[in-house]
């Protein structure tokens, strides 16, 4: 299933470029918006407040980023749940394999999954299935 829009939040430009190509080639979406840190993505969500149709279907969120890291971004969302709705699927996409990070991610109930880099075709396809079948998590 193809979705409207994906936010890719990561400070690593190479990764952003590669991931965009991979996601598009798998046909998950045609529109990917790149943000190089949590703050930029958060500001965009503030801009979209009230415009439900323009919200992304998927947010792929890195953890280690300057200015506002992944956790801080999630905290902001937790404080302002109105910014997104249930249609927005958030995935943590990180190179960290530290158990602490995985455990911490479980404290945010609204996260759909925790993916460790490298991002694979299989990961992208699972996301596609999950979006069409909201009860499933990856």
């Amino acid at each position: 299933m193809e979705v409207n829009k994906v936010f890719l939040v990561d400070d690593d430009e190479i990764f952003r470029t590669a991931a965009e190509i991979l996601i598009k080639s798998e046909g998950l979406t045609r529109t990917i918006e790149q943000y190089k840190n949590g703050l930029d993505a958060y500001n965009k969500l503030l801009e979209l407040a009230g415009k439900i149709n323009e919200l992304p279907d998927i947010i792929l969120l890195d953890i280690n980023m300057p200015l506002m890291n992944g956790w801080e971004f999630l905290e902001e969302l937790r404080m302002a749940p109105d910014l997104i709705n249930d249609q927005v699927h958030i995935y943590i996409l990180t190179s960290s394999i530290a158990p602490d990070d995985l455990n911490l991610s479980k404290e945010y109930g609204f996260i759909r999954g925790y993916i460790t880099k490298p991002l694979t075709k299989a990961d992208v396809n699972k996301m596609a299935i999950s979006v069409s079948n909201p009860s499933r998590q990856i």
Partner: protein
Amino acid sequence: MKTNCQPTISIEDLPFPIVVLDKKLEILRCSQIFFDFFELAHSNCQSLTLKEVIGELPISFSKILNRKTFLNKELKEFTAHVTRKHELKWFKMVLYPSQKEKCYYLYFDDVTQKKKTIDLSLQAERAARIGSWEVDLVNHTVFWSDMTREIHETPRSHVPNLETGINFYKEGKHRERIIEVVSECIEKGTPYDEELILVTAKGNQKWVRAIGNSEMINGKASRMFGVFQDIDKEKRASIEYQILTDRMRVAVESSNIGIWDYNIIDNVLVWDDNMYNLYGVKKEDFSGEVAAWETTIHPNDKDRSIQEVEMAIRGEKEFNTQFRIITPEGSIRHIHGQGKVFKNKHGNPVRMVGANADITRIKKVDNRLRQLLNITEKQNKNLLNFAHIVSHNLRSNSSNLSMLTGMLLDNTDPKSQEKFLEMIRISSERLDETVVQLNEIIKIQSDQGKNLQWVKVEPALKNALESINAHIEETDPDISIQIHKELKVYAIKPYLSSIFLNLLTNSIKYRRTEEKLKIKISAKTISNQTIISFKDNGQGIDLKKHGEKLFGMYKTFHGNSDAKGIGLFISKNQMDAMNAIIDVESEVNKGTIFNLCFTNKTD
């Protein structure tokens, strides 16, 4: 049945109770005192019978009645009698046969007092378990009292003699000793008083106190007498106590614990030998006053220790503390002191007794352990940091590589492939860079405290400035250096330059574009510490938000694309390796000050 008895003097007038009896013990006559003695009315004695006066007759008396012949020797009997005042009285009765008169004289003696005394002494003997004995050295007879028999656990039928008496003593030193003292007592009349072990007739061992003496006649002992006391219970308790005391003494001696005893009222402090060893003080040099103890305490611990003694005396806190002392030779020892305060019946403290132990060795080991623990904790933290780098930075590059190579293989379009190859090149370069950084950090951490030397600050600073010449020309900052040409710090030379370089680069990187960059580098020395400060008027940093992470690895704060989050982490590691401290003061949009604090080696 009256016989012709004609006494030559008047019986009636005799000044003691006496009666004259016929062969059948019928009263013939009596003295006037007799009536008084038995509180009888003065009347005709012939109307009285002996039975009426003294009650049931003793068996020996009754036998006389059945005799055909006249008794030819005197008879002694004791009898009890309850007076009209309900007092118990004891009498000795002596029956004298008078062959000439063919009658008996019966004499009464009041022995109540004697009887009581004997009873009491028997009771005392029993209670104290004291038995008596006597040896007649002329006739070779031995007398043992009941208690003496009981102590020896012999049957009543046992007939003791001097030799068998001695054989009751335990073979070995106990028997040898008794033979020695008895011989001396017989030969020279020397009395003895010994505590020895006896083996009773029943085979039980018990401690006795044997006291003996002899009666010398013409330089020859005629009689030996003495007492035995069963001291088994007390002796065993005292032996037990002695063993405990000995054990305690050995423990105290070998554990290097000193005991002290402080008389609070007289202000006298008594030390045992161990205390003198502990404090390295000679007995003759110690005045025995508390002040003498106080002078040995380390100045930094003195007030506290004295206060703790006073608090213990006031009953506010138990005395259980540690302090250092300085021995006359000047060495420092750690002492653990414990004490207890004793009060008189009015509740006033009068005495304090306690122990001191030398815990210097334990202290040293403890400190060493603490040091090791600190190092371990630090290493652990470092390891976690490494885990973090491996997990994050190495993986972020390697995962890019794996993604890109996969995509390169999937995609045959030459233009795309070229793009992927360029991205692969960048990723592999970054991977290489990360590995180099890791290597550098490992090197710094293994350099901890090594290669330290006196380094001139100014040349190191000039060196750093030169290497960023291009940047400086581009941004044209005001750099003011207020450092004495000769200032030196105890450091590792390349690290010092590297830190300077990093701080200068940061100032340039995070300057405010709207204002000309000003950098002021100054130094001050306070006692053995030199602080070099780098102050700029740049963007500053929100320390409330980022303060904790500022010196962390791969932490970036400004969103600059060229920020790697490694510079301050490396600077911090280098400062650690030089046992120096880096700290920061900053305000957003005002500027930042980094202080480098070096502790200079004192030779």
